[in-house]
């Protein structure tokens, strides 16, 4: 895949997100940088509390960035923006949430849930209705469902509604925050297939956030591994699976359940212990160790790695 000549759609540089006031300040994201190319699926993987969701929410401006910048189509979208620019961001970047049971307003009809983003944009009723119907059809639901309430749908259908709500804005980038973790395995496949189909048809770009590397391998082109607010490794999916360099990535990979009883019984589970690094006096730097493969490591670890490869 020719990575370098692809257009960069979203660029995150040294992004920091902090919560709390000065005395109880907690930095959830500690300076992450990555690019997302147009049309690709970029994955962020990490455990709960690693800051992966916070990164996604900072991009879509739910949380303000404490430092660093986010640029979309070459235009800065973090920090203060004019009303027109804010509208532009919400039009172009949309989000799909984890739990379809919790992310739909129980008291609103599907019609309103899906169309809410279009309101106040000077669109006529008829056009809004047409776009909602189209969005519902695109995700494999019937336009007639628009008059129903969320409780009338199953989990998989609800997640489709969540996707329709994002699609109706005609976005270029969709941030999918664990879109399938709350679903049954059989429904997962349906939703993944739908997301892939939409990507092919509309040239969508996905930022896919998950803790499950087995799903990531299936749909992501590149994956960033996040641990405690830092990206520890970033590489093409296959490179990451074949040659994981960071011990944390290796631990994550060893935890993937394999649907094969023979292999599964021989598997050795790795547990990541951060004390294996000696970062006092020799702080780690995010370095490109081979083409398109970045690793957070200090000088000593890089030297060791070089020795192993030589």
């Amino acid at each position, binding site marked *: 895949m020719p990575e370098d000549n692809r257009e960069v759609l979203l660029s995150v540089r040294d992004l920091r997100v902090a919560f709390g006031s000065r005395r109880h300040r907690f930095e959830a994201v500690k300076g992450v940088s990555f690019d997302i190319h147009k049309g690709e699926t970029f994955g962020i993987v990490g455990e709960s509390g690693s800051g992966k969701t916070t990164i996604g929410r900072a991009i879509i401006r739910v949380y303000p960035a404490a430092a660093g910048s986010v640029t979309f189509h070459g235009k800065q979208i973090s920090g203060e923006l004019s009303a027109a620019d804010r509208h532009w961001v919400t039009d172009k970047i949309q989000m799909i949430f984890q739990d379809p049971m919790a992310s739909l307003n129980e008291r609103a009809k599907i019609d309103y849930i899906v169309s809410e983003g279009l309101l106040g944009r000077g669109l006529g009723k008829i056009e809004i209705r047409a776009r909602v119907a189209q969005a519902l059809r695109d995700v494999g639901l019937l336009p007639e469902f628009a008059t129903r309430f969320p409780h009338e749908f199953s989990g998989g259908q609800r997640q489709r509604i969540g996707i329709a709500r994002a699609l109706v804005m005609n976005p270029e980038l969709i941030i999918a925050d664990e879109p399938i973790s709350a679903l049954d395995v059989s429904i997962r496949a349906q939703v993944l297939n739908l997301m892939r189909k939409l990507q092919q048809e509309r040239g969508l770009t996905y930022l896919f956030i998950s803790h499950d590397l087995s799903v990531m391998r299936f749909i992501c082109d590149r994956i960033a591994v996040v641990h405690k607010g830092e990206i520890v490794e970033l590489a093409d999916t296959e490179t990451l699976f074949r040659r994981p360099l960071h011990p944390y990535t290796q631990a994550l990979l060893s935890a*993937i359940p394999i649907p094969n009883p023979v292999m599964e019984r021989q598997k050795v589970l790795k547990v*990541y212990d951060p004390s294996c690094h000696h970062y006092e006096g020799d702080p780690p730097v995010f370095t490109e160790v081979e083409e398109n493969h970045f690793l957070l490591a200090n000088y000593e670890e890089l030297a060791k790695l070089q020795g192993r490869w030589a």
Partner: protein
Amino acid sequence: MNKRCILSVRDLHVVFRLRNRKLHALRGVNLDVYEGETIAIVGESGSGKSVLNKNFIGLLDNNGRITGGSIRYYPRIWEHLGREKDRGEDEQGEYVELAGLGRSKNWRGIRGGQVCMIPQDPMTSLNPLKTIGWQLTEALKLNRGLRGQQAYDEAIRLLEDVQIDNPEERYWQYPHEFSGGMRQRVVIAIAIACNPRILICDEPTTALDVTIQAQVLQLIREVKEKYGLTVIFITHDLGVVANVADRVAVMYAGEIVEIGRTEEVFFKPQHPYTWALLSSLPQLGTKGEDLLAIRGTPPNLFKEITGDAFAPRNPDAMLIEHLAEPPVFEVSPTHSARTWRLDPRAPESKPPRPIRKLKKLGGERDA
């Protein structure tokens, strides 16, 4: 396999009454659980896997009723279990009939003492107002009659058993001070505090991260070995099952459609539903291609089901599958499936590609 049977379910039917309509949740389940094994029960939501297991600890919802069949539990020690009329003896040994126990009070001695359950979500299964130590010693008090220092010592030992660091300090902490994985460890400690023989794990890892999930699964395996438990493991994720189970039972629409040793179910699956479940796993998918998703939704159990319940969702279903209920066909002494595909008159049908991929892996090992 000449292991001792610990739980035997025969033709179990459970019906729920909902707004004056009848929902046939279990439609004739047959299942033998052997002592010391780990059996996984796999199925989608609504397949009846949780309902089946609630019968084993007498926690069926109030609107549910067992309308037929039997559940026989074969205890090691006789005393205090059930009423006189619930006891009996058959070729497997002395048993207590669980299907007829009904009210809560008759369950004393069995629930907790013999059968324990780890519920799905550790966030909601612990009491947020009581310390971990209090909740652990409560179980020790009620089930084993331990008090004071004795109970404390035992609680500390249990916390160590589930690999919680600093148990003396953790004993005094509240659930909110624990992470999800740690809470699930505490729940496991409480379950084994009762010294049960059967441990039912109802999707114990779905609310957890993959890394924590792997650790909890390992812990369940270790605890099982140490305490000689029989584990019934409920899940919707066949990927997890390969890790823990000796045998796998696949449930669909209130019946067991396939059951066999784990290797048999993974490498030689027979029922189209098992095929579909396996091939929808992203681990087995080919990148850039669609996953083989199961079309449609599970059948409506308010309605009478004719034929194979999975037929409407099976694109290659034969005519007979829509018309008549398939009998159970034995593939091997330990492996059986309920599908017309296995009838000698049925035409040859090929499992989907991911299954053949798996089979190849298994074939190499068998040879």
